[in-house]
């Protein structure tokens, strides 16, 4: 029994006592002083935008669990979702520390940390994410397109943010770069495979790309991301779709409300709960 890789899991009864880890601050002990020349409210707002994108896409990708075309892709999408939720947690924690006024009020005595309060106790109207990430999942090809476009944009942005004056944001970005490179390349490889597969896989890929392409400007104008996306499309022999951005009133689609209803219901039912 003792010579297998999992022997250490049974160190003692306390080893898997999750209760002790309940107050796990993802930025514990870090110097969160906002540097001179940076407006804390703007920094917080910016981190909230980035964090909401990552949180909502992470949740959408987690919906693929047990539904992906095969086990490897199921595990891959779950891993990407986990990275994004992890990035979201750090970004929301940074936002809350820079501007505590953003954090919704909770009942007295609630142990919910600030980043969870932001994730689970804000309504759709207060979310700052792009609509691209809140759209309901289509098929696997559509998800490949969405991850490709999102990860390519976010990677280019995080590469630039890796020397941001704010220490926390810089650290979050530098770590995210490594993760997003794997996400982008995973989606890029599938993009090429589906484009060169069957007529049906190509039809689905092009349909998925048309949906995603219409929303990509929400992620900002980014020549570096555009250049990389151009190379992926070239490698796949796919032409960029000629689509116009959809008109969205009020900043979000009704799909975000549905997503949040599912994601937030348990936390809201137990605002004093410990997880």
């Amino acid at each position: 029994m003792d010579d297998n890789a999992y022997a250490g899991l049974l160190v003692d009864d306390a080893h898997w006592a999750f209760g002790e880890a309940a107050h796990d601050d993802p930025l514990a002990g870090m110097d969160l002083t906002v540097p001179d020349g940076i407006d804390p409210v703007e920094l917080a707002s910016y981190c909230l935008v980035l964090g909401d994108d990552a949180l909502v896409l992470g949740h959408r990708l987690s919906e693929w669990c047990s539904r992906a075309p095969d086990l490897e892709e199921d595990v891959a999408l779950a891993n990407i979702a986990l990275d994004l939720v992890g990035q979201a947690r750090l970004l929301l924690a940074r936002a809350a520390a820079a501007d505590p006024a953003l954090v919704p009020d909770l009942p007295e005595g609630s142990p919910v940390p600030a980043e969870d309060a932001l994730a689970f106790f804000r309504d759709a109207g207060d979310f700052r994410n792009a609509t691209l990430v809140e759209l309901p999942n289509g098929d696997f090809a559509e998800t490949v397109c969405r991850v490709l476009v999102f990860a390519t944009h976010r990677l280019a942005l995080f590469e630039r943010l890796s020397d941001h004056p704010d220490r926390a944001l810089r650290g979050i970005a530098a770590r995210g770069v490594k993760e997003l490179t794997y996400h982008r390349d995973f989606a890029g490889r599938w993009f090429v495979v589906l484009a060169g597969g069957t007529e049906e896989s190509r039809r689905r890929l092009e349909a998925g790309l048309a949906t995603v392409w219409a929303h990509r400007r929400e992620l900002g104008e980014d020549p570096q991301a555009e250049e990389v996306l151009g190379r992926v499309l070239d490698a796949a022999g796919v032409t960029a779709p000629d689509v116009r951005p959809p008109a969205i009133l009020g900043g979000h689609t009704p799909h975000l409300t549905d997503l949040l209803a599912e994601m937030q219901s348990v936390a809201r039912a137990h605002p004093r709960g410990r997880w």
Partner: protein
Amino acid sequence: MRAAAEVAATVVDPEMPMLTLADLGVLRSVDVGDSGEVVVTITPTYSGCPATAEMRADLVRRLRAEGYDDVSVRIALEPAWTTDWITEQGRAALVEAGVSPPGPAPRRSGPMPLRLGPPRRSLTCPRCGGPEVDLTSEFGPTACTALYRCAACGEPFEHVKEI
């Protein structure tokens, strides 16, 4: 009383318990103040790594058990963790447990290069040493591993991805 640094160095990664936090490179420093307060600094591996909370709780628990009452664990996000920090001893422990250790992490100067072909790594099977291995997935059962299969012995195995 054992030295705090020595105690902290024996705490293992809950997901890869063949590795101590020191071998994994997550443990960055252990400082003991004049009044005996211990400050442990760790750099987590992946942003969403669920083991981070357990690592912190384990560090506090083990140090307290050794008589250090005032223990805090700090997070350092930069420089970002890299698989290059896994020690030689850690790499040997991975192979011993049937996990393929990472090669050198990609060095970054300028944008991360786009790789649309299958990732090429020069690996050998950690079980039989066979040189022919097939990648089955870039994402494995934990955030930090990819999945491979050995063409010679047919066994699947995990490879710690270079980051």
